[in-house]
């Protein structure tokens, strides 16, 4: 979605961004609503419940792996792992709200990112 805004705006400014976003989302919205109708009728079935349990377990793994894949870049300057770790500790161990996590971690992130940019 963010990518649609970026690419759309490069080709057609604000209008391009709007067109790219609409074009990208209307079809999928229609499909997902059809699936929602099916869900409403068949969610009582044990097999459908199992199906969704399996898919959601895979889905959460897919989200985690987008994070792990982005991590590959951090090996070029391993000090950045500190930023990743601090963010995770603030969010999952201390359950800080997003604003506090960002306020807390951003100064360290910018400091280390500057060093990374200078080093590479």
């Amino acid at each position, binding site marked *: 979605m963010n990518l649609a805004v970026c690419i759309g705006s490069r080709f057609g400014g604000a209008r391009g961004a709007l067109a790219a976003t609409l074009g990208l*989302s209307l*079809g999928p919205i229609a499909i*997902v609503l059809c699936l929602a109708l099916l*869900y409403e009728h068949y969610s009582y079935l044990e097999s459908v419940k199992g199906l969704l349990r399996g898919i*959601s*377990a895979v889905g959460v*793994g897919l989200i985690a792996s987008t994070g792990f894949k982005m991590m590959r870049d951090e090996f070029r300057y391993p000090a950045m792992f500190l930023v990743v770790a601090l963010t995770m500790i603030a*969010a999952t161990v201390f359950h800080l709200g997003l604003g506090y996590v960002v306020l807390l971690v951003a100064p360290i992130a910018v400091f280390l990112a500057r060093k990374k*940019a200078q080093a590479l």
Partner: protein
Amino acid sequence: MSILLSLFLKLSAFSLVAFGGVNALLPVLFNLAVHQEHWIDVQTFSDYFAIAQAAPGPNFMTVTLIGWHVYGVLGALLATLAIAWPSSIMIYFLQRFIMRMKNPLSKQTIQYAAAALAIGLVLSSAFEIALQINHSLAAYILTIGTIAITLLTRWHPLYLIAIGGALGVLGFI
């Protein structure tokens, strides 16, 4: 009418913080939809999450489904609009701001810092959502197996979703 307005405003506010992508902030969405507003319960959230993962398209479809649950097709469209407009406008200006930056060092600094923060948030998000939607050891093994396979192979995610669904239908998860 008031529930539609509240749906629109609350999701717009959520979108303002979620410009890094909905997936990094699923726990925030979970809290909002399940605990604060009581739009849906835990089970429905994880079912909608599954449907959104299996369906093609952008990753905010969980939000579309929550909107549908609250107020039918109108709710779905309004929820999608609410989740999209604040973050799109922010990204639009952020991108122009970064592209106009003259100093390549500052540009790189911002990108590296944002990337590291995003990684931390996405991993935390996956961890917290796993705690909510995985109810068995087998589910966790499936999640970890998914991570391993996506990192080690080039399989398309749809295969993994199909395998996960099949294991679920057979009653393993």
